């Protein structure tokens, strides 16, 4: 028993009833927390280059990301990252720390289903699409770059 017209009317009615929240506080929180995470990355990067002057710039960036990923993974494990995330929203989802959190949280959550079928399988339940889409896109870019290079 499906009545498309009635459904549309009801959906429109519900949409109008949904409480509207002010977007500014959450946008501001996302802005300054996200900005701070990036500053932290910048700080780690410069500290690395200061401590190891011979380090290549590219390696320093890789180390920076590894350290940020470690911090996020640890904060996830001790149950703190989600609290920051609830406050900051995009501020902790968009940085690489959000990627780390999206891999760590299901890994820890599903450990009770076993290491193979729990941790290993579910680890990519959130971040899987990111890796898949990123890898596919990089192959496409590489192929186009190759073809353009031939011409």
């Amino acid at each position, binding site marked *: 028993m499906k009545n498309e017209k009635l459904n549309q009317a009801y959906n429109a009615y519900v949409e109008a009833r949904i409480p509207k929240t002010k977007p500014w506080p959450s*946008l501001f929180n*996302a*802005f*300054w927390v*996200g*900005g*701070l995470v*990036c*500053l932290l*990355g*910048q700080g780690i*990067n410069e500290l690395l280059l200061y401590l190891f002057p011979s380090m290549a710039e590219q390696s320093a*960036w*890789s*180390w*920076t*990301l*590894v350290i940020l*990923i*470690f911090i996020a*993974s*640890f904060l996830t*494990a001790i*149950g703190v990252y*989600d609290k920051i995330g609830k406050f900051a*929203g*995009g*501020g902790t*989802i*968009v*940085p*690489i720390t*959000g*990627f*780390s959190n*999206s*891999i*760590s949280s299901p*890994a*820890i959550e599903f*450990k009770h289903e076993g290491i193979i079928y729990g*941790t*290993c399988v579910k*680890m990519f339940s*959130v*971040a899987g*699409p*990111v*890796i898949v889409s*990123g*890898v596919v*896109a*990089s*192959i496409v*870019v*590489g*192929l*186009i*770059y*190759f073809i353009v290079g031939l011409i």
Partner: protein
Amino acid sequence: MEYLWVFLIGGLICMLGQVLIITTKITSARILVLFVMIGVVLQAFNIFDPISRFAQAGVNVPIIGFGASLAKGAMSAVESRGLLGAFTGGLEATAAGIAAAVGFAFLFSLIFKSKTK
């Protein structure tokens, strides 16, 4: 001064993510995918490096930087290795990040348990 740029640009990119969360109700997996794609596209058109030079961590820490590395890796690998580079380059350039995220997640999953909210 350069720290101000890092903060401002990093913050603005994250805020853009928040705008998407509020207006389109999309979940974190989709936001991450979208920003990776933005990074790939920026790199493919060689726009990422100029931004990266003055914004530094402001664009490299957001997942956009991850996307840019994927594309950059593929492009430079094509230059050095030809067609095979299109397949090896992306993951090679981002191997540290992916391996770290997977490795630490696995390690901590052995030690910790999800907390009650």
